[in-house]
């Protein structure tokens, strides 16, 4: 078993990168559910530092209203989330850690997986719906 472990423990790869499918705002196909997909990420990775009594409440029932079309407290007039527009959404820049808006989120050793980032990105591209 140990030999098998070592035999399968070496490779040289790089990635993954997320390349979103081009989304037409007129397209009615929605792949991401805010309540089931995005909120699950907030509950698991974000709510600890963004609880109900904080500046930004990412709890169930509050997170959508606190994010979409709301100015970012430290980066006004930029919006936390702009539907269909990742480049204009502070949240997107925070999770991909491109240093545009200070600390990455979540900070430090904790990171979202590429799949979690993909869910949030796709949710924004699909209109940041409260579905």
């Amino acid at each position: 078993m140990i030999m098998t472990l070592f035999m399968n423990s070496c490779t040289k790869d790089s990635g993954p990168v997320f390349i979103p499918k081009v989304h037409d705002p007129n397209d009615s196909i929605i792949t991401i559910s805010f309540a089931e997909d995005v909120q699950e990420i907030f509950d698991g990775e974000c709510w600890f530092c963004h609880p109900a009594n904080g500046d930004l409440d990412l709890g169930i029932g509050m997170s959508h209203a606190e994010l979409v079309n709301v100015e970012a407290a430290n980066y006004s007039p930029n919006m936390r989330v702009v539907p269909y527009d990742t480049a204009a959404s502070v949240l997107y820049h925070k999770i991909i850690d491109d240093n545009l808006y200070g600390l990455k989120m979540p900070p430090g050793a904790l990171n979202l997986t590429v799949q979690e980032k993909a869910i949030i990105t796709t949710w924004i591209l699909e209109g940041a719906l409260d579905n």
Partner: protein
Amino acid sequence: MDGNMFRSVIMATVSVLLWSNVLYAQDADSVEVKQPKEYVKQTFDHPQLINTQTNEVLPERTWMFRIQHRFGAIGFDESFYEDFLGLDLFANIRLGYSTAITKDLMIGVGRTKVDKIWDFEAKYALLKQTKDNKMPFSLSVYSNMGINSDEAVEADSTLFFADSTTLFVPKFAHRVNYDFEVIIARKFGNAASFQFTPTFIYRNLAEPGATNHTFALPFSGRVRIGMKSFIVFEYAYVINNRTKDFRDPISLGVEISTLGHAFKMFVSSTDQLLGQEMYTNSSYDYTDGEFLFGFNITRKFWRKKKKKK
């Protein structure tokens, strides 16, 4: 570095270990009367300083339990008291168990909270500083294999390898990362000990835009300030894979050490606990006043010597 070169590095390390034993044996055979070497003891009291390994291995018949805890990052602003020194924020923790196999070899296993990493480590004391200064430093080799046991990334039609054309297919190997270190340490009387640790990190799955291998040059040490207390520090210069605004990890603290215990309390710019993660991710921006508090608790236990019948 391709697979062949990686295997070569491992083979070279193993060869050094094996040949060192052969050379010692030959040396012992060729000298009829030999004074026992007096080695410098307790360059560092324990196998770990703050985040980096020391040259020390556990003595025979001992095992060790370790708790490494890092609070959330704060700054010199209201977060300092509102988040109560970072206690209210997300923390990273590692629990570790290590045991001596021979007088110069120890192995261990640990579990880290972030990414749910299980890691397996081995350290071998290759050279020891002698009191007559014929061997002016100690040298140990250390290796750690970390396995991420967090939820797997699933294949998806929107996920690609870094070439942006090949669909990403997750493998077990992507969870595995390696840390190889050569630890060169010297004790300067009872006043201070310093060490230099050339480090090679290999990540099977590199971040897009980064190479699989990362080199780092940590420098660390401790300076005595009391009978059993020391100032401890670490700084590591990461040579490659430095993304924009990359910050090297740096830590400063105090150590209170006894034969069996070590307590270390410090401020640090990193909450990563393994070399594989620490040298491949930027630390907090200490130039902007960001830092965190942390502590390590180490406890050694001794097994009784078996009585001869």
